[in-house]
């Protein structure tokens, strides 16, 4: 009976003229001898098209910040000298414009010392404040502080003033300041009128990667206010103190910045699914599909930071970035556990001008399963509350709730399941579906610091693969503590982490084996047949 409903749910939505029942299609795909060379046929590719806005990974994100130049040679110098067979990625001619600004960077440093203040949380003159790996500042175009990741905004008003000054100084000469590299630091500037975002990073990542993170912070702010309101308040009064409107949201931005350091999904512009038997997921999805309401646009079921299922209105696509902002909202606010939440939220990639209204609640108080129902109507609370009830009833009636809870209690999967020697960890993204899969972090990377270091390594590989001037198809990197291999095709992106005992030959041969394994498991690891209302 469950299967019946499932088929009814999907098979009538025929795209690409494909009339094959989805179950048979699944089998055909599993037998495909060369998986993943073409977009749409890679393991994990959705059968009915993507459920996300189709984006070419993060180019889409940085597209609006004009062409960004990366200082590649600096990176090579900074990073581990033992890089063995690193593919050529030098780009010497691009460094000129930025080096000339080193002098100003030193001034920033001096200002940091001067702006003394007894900050509540952290003394901004202290060595600990200065030694943070990633600082992010947001200010208005009038130079007023809006957000700082560490310390208080009041204590940093003069520093932010200097940042503003630097920007307008360069802009006066009809130029744009993008970044300053000095002393192991990168200071990255991003103007998203009416806001200015500045990151001060101690990292070997490219400017592009860092600008991407600033974009995330920008969209986080837009998601709370909408761009329309943001523009409006500053049009009325240039010197407006935006912290008034953002009060109580600092923890959202803090949490987003932590997520950026840890979650490969934000790096890859992709979303991870909760591994779940496809039969169970189908029941969950179709139950959610059935619990619809007139103004409902997206129904999203999350398990922590993993997606269980997403049902959307026909022809409406969610951008992965908007989904990440929703993730962040949910994981950083325990207040949704207490009752049913009802909040306006702007999904800036969908429409920066308007608010959606989201009904956010956990299925059970102690459960990790969180349901987000996104509606266009601000008066829709009780309709959506009713949708949730109907969804829960259906789940229970079809006894899917239990299997869902069980899947939730299990760890994702250990990398040893794949059966590749020396493989410690991997991240695989299916481009056409915008979903990725990754095993549990193994022992050396479970600690916070090591976790972030591994993500940093992936990020570095990512910026090599996606270098705007010299994109790479693959890169192999040997280091003391691990060997890394990353490759990108038109269908997928794959990042592998091997123990230092691995060899390049092993890494290359591992790819096919891994792809075959993912193909075999794709029913469980991905959402292959996304549903619409």
């Amino acid at each position: 009976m469950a299967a019946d409903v499932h088929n009814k749910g999907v098979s009538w939505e025929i795209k690409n003229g494909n009339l094959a029942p989805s179950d048979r299609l699944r089998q055909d795909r599993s037998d495909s001898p060369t998986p993943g060379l073409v977009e749409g046929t890679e393991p994990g590719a959705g059968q009915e098209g993507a459920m996300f806005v189709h984006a070419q990974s993060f180019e889409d994100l940085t597209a609006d910040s004009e062409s960004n130049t990366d200082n590649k040679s600096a990176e090579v110098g900074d990073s581990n000298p033992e890089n063995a067979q690193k593919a050529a990625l030098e780009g010497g001619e691009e460094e000129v414009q930025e080096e000339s600004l080193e002098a100003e960077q030193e001034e920033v440093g001096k200002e940091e010392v001067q702006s003394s203040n007894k900050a509540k949380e952290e003394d901004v003159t202290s060595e600990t404040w200065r030694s943070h790996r990633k600082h992010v500042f947001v200010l208005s175009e009038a130079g007023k502080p809006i957000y700082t990741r560490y310390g208080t905004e009041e204590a940093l008003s003069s520093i932010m003033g200097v940042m503003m000054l630097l920007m307008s100084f360069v802009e006066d000469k009809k130029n744009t300041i993008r970044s300053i590299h000095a002393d192991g630091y990168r200071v990255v500037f991003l103007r998203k009128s009416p806001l200015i975002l500045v990151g001060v990073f101690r990292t070997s990542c490219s400017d592009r990667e860092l600008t991407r993170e600033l974009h995330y912070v920008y969209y986080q702010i837009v998601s709370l206010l909408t761009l329309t309101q943001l523009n409006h308040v500053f049009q009325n009064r240039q010197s407006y103190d935006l912290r008034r409107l953002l009060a109580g949201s600092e923890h959202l931005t803090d949490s987003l910045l932590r997520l950026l350091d840890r979650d490969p999904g934000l790096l890859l512009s992709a979303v991870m699914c909760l591994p779940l038997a496809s039969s169970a997921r189908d029941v969950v999805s179709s139950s959610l599909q059935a619990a619809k309401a007139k103004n409902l646009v997206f129904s999203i079921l999350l398990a922590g930071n993993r997606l269980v299922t997403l049902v959307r209105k026909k022809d409406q696509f969610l951008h992965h970035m908007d989904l990440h902002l929703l993730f962040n909202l949910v994981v950083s606010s325990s207040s949704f556990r207490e009752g049913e939440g009802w909040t306006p939220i702007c999904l800036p990639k969908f429409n920066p001008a308007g608010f959606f209204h989201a009904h956010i609640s956990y299925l059970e108080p102690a459960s990790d399963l969180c349901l987000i129902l996104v509606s266009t109507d601000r008066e829709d609370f009780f309709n959506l509350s009713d949708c949730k009830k109907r969804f829960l009833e259906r789940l229970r009636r079809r006894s899917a709730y239990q299997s869902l809870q069980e899947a939730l209690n299990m760890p994702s999967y250990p990398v040893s399941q794949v059966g590749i020697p020396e493989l410690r960890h991997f991240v695989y993204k299916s481009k056409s579906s915008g979903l990725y899969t990754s095993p549990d972090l193994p022992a050396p990377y479970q600690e916070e610091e090591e976790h972030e270091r591994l993500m940093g390594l992936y990020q570095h590989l990512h910026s090599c693969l996606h270098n705007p001037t010299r994109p790479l198809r693959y890169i192999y990197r040997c280091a003391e503590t691990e060997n890394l291999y990353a490759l990108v095709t038109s269908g997928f992106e794959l990042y592998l982490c091997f123990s230092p005992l691995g060899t390049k030959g092993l890494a290359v041969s591992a790819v096919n084996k891994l792809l075959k394994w993912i193909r075999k498991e794709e029913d469980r690891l991905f959402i292959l047949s996304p549903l619409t209302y």
Partner: protein
Amino acid sequence: MSTRGTGRTNGSLPQTKICQFKLVLLGDMAVGKSSLVLRFVKGQFDEFQETTIGAAFLAQSVCLDDTTVKFEIWDTAGQERYHSLAPMYYRGAQAAIVVFDITKPETFERAKAWVKELQRQASPNIVIALAGNKADLADKRLVEYEEAQTYAEDTGLLFMETSAKTAMNVNELFLAIAKKMPKTDTQNPTHAARHRGVNLQDPDAQSSRSCCGN
């Protein structure tokens, strides 16, 4: 509507009246609205209660003699960016608790502004209670009990000083509100559930819609 309600009564609980009321909490941010609600609904208190995003909806019943009073509580966020949404929550509400922090005079001023707005724009017979929260921090008190008391008397509000932390006066406050509620407006649960949908929405538009639905 009422005939429809009685038609659905199953008659198994003849002597227990069930009244359902919509109650909204308003007040500046960080005065303890969510803490009061959680103390009342769940008996819990968290020193580091997180800020509410948007609004949270919770329900709790109290028993008064032969009547069960079910509160449907809208715990709103105090941040300025959500102010424009407030009318959606107090519209159609039969009760409101306006909360301030006795250690922060500016939150008392903000509370007065909320009261004014409610008296101007909410339904005319709304029961408004003023809660001076964080009474456990009496040594840091900056709003005198008498001052708030006088203001409440002048404006016709219920007034209590509360502490979500120690549970002082929390249940008492909700009980006092329940007592002030008009019990004549008795509804059986079926009817009430339907009626509840009305409150958030424009009363006129909704009632005509639900009539068509029948």
